[in-house]
């Protein structure tokens, strides 16, 4: 009786440890390593991940699918980000300059208090569409900080340009212009 009880307890302990290890392995395997940033770094330019996000002001949602046929600059920002304040006027100029060619600058505010983001947008007079997203969107796109910018072409496919940092700082200006040119190419 004592021996079988001891064996049962040992088996239970081993099963417990094995269960915890299985959980750890499952979590590691299911980590999202196939982010947009990683795809672009590997030169893969497949379809951009679909999303439908609430507008920061005015209600309603904006989905990436609804922008098919347009070139989209996907810009991640937050109201607490100082470089974003410097970048927003430049994006506003770019959007006004190229909107007739079918360009949409879409600002995705994430990891931010939406009220602060609205005040930020009003203060800077941003007119391009702005949406608010939950924290998880950073993981899907592989965003590691703000501002970061991606490009989606008229067919809804990623362009292999990823700008980390303000789009008009240093070498980022060249990257931004290349991304814009590739995204605006006619279908």
């Amino acid at each position: 009786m004592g021996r079988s009880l001891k064996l049962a307890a040992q088996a239970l302990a081993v099963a417990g440890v094995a269960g915890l290890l299985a959980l750890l392995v499952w979590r590691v395997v299911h980590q999202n390593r196939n982010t947009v940033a990683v795809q672009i770094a590997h030169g893969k330019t497949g379809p951009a991940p679909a999303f439908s996000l609430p507008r920061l002001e005015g209600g309603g949602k904006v989905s990436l699918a609804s922008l098919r046929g347009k070139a989209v600059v996907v810009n991640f920002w937050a109201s607490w980000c100082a470089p974003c304040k410097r970048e927003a006027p430049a994006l506003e100029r770019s959007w006004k300059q190229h909107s007739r060619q079918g360009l949409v600058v879409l600002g995705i505010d994430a990891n931010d208090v939406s009220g602060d983001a609205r005040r930020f947008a009003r203060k800077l007079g941003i007119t391009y569409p702005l949406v608010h997203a939950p924290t998880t969107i950073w993981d899907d796109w592989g965003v590691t900080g703000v501002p970061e910018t991606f490009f989606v072409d008229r067919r809804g496919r990623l362009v292999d340009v990823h700008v980390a940092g303000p789009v008009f700082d240093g070498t980022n200006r060249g990257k931004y212009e290349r991304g814009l040119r590739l995204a605006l190419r006619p279908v």
Partner: protein
Amino acid sequence: MRLVVTAVAALALAAPALASDAHPTLNELEGEVMCPICHTTLDQSSSAAAQRIKAFIVRRIRAGDSKSEIERRLVADFGPAILAQPPKHGFDLLAWLLPIAGILAGAVAVGLAAWRWTRRREPEPALVGVGPLDPELERRLDDELRRFDE
């Protein structure tokens, strides 16, 4: 009587919890809300994002929001991961159940060990229920004892 004591104890414990929900403090919420950029609680972070969230909490406390209202607003803006406590559903439920299961398993193990330990302290079965001595052995023992008395 026992029922009255239980009710009084429950009320005594519930009162501070209700007061905390109605009148939360920044200190209290700083330990329960995460900084989404640095993945630590707000009280351990001085990042720009954490500062903004702390300022938001202060504004909502001044506006008279309860703790649960502030948490609901934060979840609406950031998602459920903004709360340090994992949700009590889906896969995250394991974070709540595993420690309880561990404590129960530990209690069972300690109980079993204690039970076995007490059993070992009972008299050895070999010393209990010894039968009558062999007549020859008994006679020799009597002789020895008589010689000892002389």
